[in-house]
């Protein structure tokens, strides 16, 4: 049974890419799944929650998902 599972699906999804950006791009060892963000959630609130067909990406303050700012190394 397990032989039929796509080997790709065993690679965990990349949490940075799930947030929106991963600086490793194609070199990332984790899976980058292209998805669509919910417009309402982007504006701030969507009443559908987990039932929404589009993604409500979770945010957390992480340096690794920032594009380098002025003066930063």
């Amino acid at each position, binding site marked *: 049974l397990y032989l039929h599972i796509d080997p790709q699906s065993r690679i965990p999804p990349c949490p940075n890419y799930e947030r929106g950006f991963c600086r490793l791009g194609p070199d990332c060892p984790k899976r980058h799944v292209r998805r669509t963000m919910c417009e*309402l959630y982007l504006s*701030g*609130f969507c*009443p559908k*929650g987990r039932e929404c067909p589009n993604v*409500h990406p979770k*945010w957390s303050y992480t340096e690794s998902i920032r594009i380098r700012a002025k003066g930063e190394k």
Partner: protein
Amino acid sequence: PITQVDLDSLEDKPWRKPGADITDYFNYGFDEFSWTTYCLRQDKLRDEYDTNKLRTQMMQ
């Protein structure tokens, strides 16, 4: 397109249920209180903009 949902228009508030994760519903760290405040301020900005636009048009 509708970009803001009025919380008062919703009969069901599933994020209030025990075990619910508010971040499934609200982005940017909003909760009911801060989201309402934000919407009111947005409306205010739009109203001011519309009023100014109207004023300019009327003076022409």
